[in-house]
């Protein structure tokens, strides 16, 4: 009995008001703890939206442009004044990323394989065009959409640039008029390259040769 009395004196039973106050205190503390838990990564990482910014991935895609073609089959006896040749140019995107590409052209004089070379610079008598024409025949190319024309590069109907010059699009970084776009992995298209020789070429251009170089520059489109 004495022990109980002493206990009551030392640690009296809490009053009803005190119990209620403690209950409110615990509830308030618990709510504040829950609010803190709600902003930790434990809970925020369990739910995300497709607009959340994610980090941690370093893997990238690839930009791989492959081109095949532009091998001209010359007529028997070679190209005559007023003549034309065509060759398909197949462009593939072998990389994972969508790319855009531009085509540049340059021409150099070369020595014919046989005979005495003429004195003329054949480059001045040629015109090259890049056409949107998968069939790529002389007939189909006559009506095809022109994607690039050396006539616009040298300010005359015939003549080829000696240095690499953009004939279709622009190899500079970013999207420019004329650039072509190919989707990743499966993107492919066949262009047609047509070369015409001036009807006015004289005898100095007999047994002359020129080597045309087409360069394709590509870049990814994503973030660019």
């Amino acid at each position, binding site marked *: 009995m004495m022990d109980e009395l002493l206990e009551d004196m030392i640690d009296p039973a809490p009053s*009803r008001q005190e119990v209620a106050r403690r209950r409110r205190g615990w509830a*308030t503390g618990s709510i504040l703890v829950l609010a803190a838990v709600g902003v930790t990564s434990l809970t925020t990482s369990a739910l995300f*939206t497709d607009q959340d910014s*994610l980090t941690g991935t370093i893997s990238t895609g690839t930009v791989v442009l492959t081109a095949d073609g532009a091998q001209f089959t010359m007529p028997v006896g070679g190209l005559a004044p007023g003549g034309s040749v065509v060759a398909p140019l197949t462009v593939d995107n072998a990389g*994972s990323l969508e790319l855009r590409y531009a085509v540049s052209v340059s021409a150099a004089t070369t020595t014919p394989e046989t005979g005495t070379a003429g004195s003329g610079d054949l480059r001045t008598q040629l015109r090259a065009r890049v056409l949107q024409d998968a069939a790529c025949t002389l007939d189909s190319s006559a009506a095809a959409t022109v994607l690039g024309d050396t006539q616009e590069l040298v300010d005359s109907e015939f003549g080829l640039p000696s240095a690499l010059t953009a004939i279709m699009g622009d190899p500079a970084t970013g999207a420019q008029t004329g650039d072509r776009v190919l989707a*990743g*992995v499966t993107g492919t298209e066949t262009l047609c390259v047509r070369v015409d020789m001036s009807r006015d070429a004289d005898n100095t251009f007999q047994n002359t040769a020129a080597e045309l170089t087409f360069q394709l520059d590509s870049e990814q489109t*994503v973030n660019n």
Partner: protein
Amino acid sequence: MTSLDLGPEPFVDRRAPRPAVRRRAPRWRRVTSTALWTVVVVGVLAYLTSLAVPLWFQAQGERLLIVTSGSMAPQFVAGDVVVLRSVSDASELKPDLVVAFQPVGSPHLVTHRIVSLHLLPAMEEVRDGSGRMEPILDEAGEPILQPYIRTQGDANASPDANATPVERVRGVLLQVHHGWGSVLAWATSAQGRAVMLVPPLLALATLEVLSVLEGRRRAAPVRRPAEDRRVDAFVE
């Protein structure tokens, strides 16, 4: 022989303890208290549910993704929630599966269907200043191939422009819960959490204020009879 001296018995109040008389709180006070505690319980339960649902899925190795675009309509649309399971190996992926991935060059997630799988060579730039790329070869001289997926949204007319490295896949779709998205998005937003937690805190504060006011009223001095005051004055 020893004798035991028993001292006087301790004084013990033999009166039966008086039962504590508890004044019953007025009705308005009880109703108010019940209503306020209801606000506390409902708010906290709602908040706990908003935490527990995503965590419950996470405990099973799954994650919830709130859809915000309609590129996969009609399977799921903006405002739906999809359940994703993480992918540990590229062999788990196959065409027609719906996956969430982070496209190259984007910080955001996209959830689309796999159209095809590809092995593409890893490339590196040729160190001749030309900018050309060439495949990276392994010790046997063979190109190192990396797995990629091509994807397309069901509502889109054509596949996505870029293929995605498999390492960027964040999960494969398991389930769709229509309409969960807007609720969960709200519940996990700052506004939603404030709506769920601030009223309970205000309710508790109100209960505290009421308690303090009641305490003051109880502790208010009782007016004594006039003769008592006179005695007090004499004693002073």
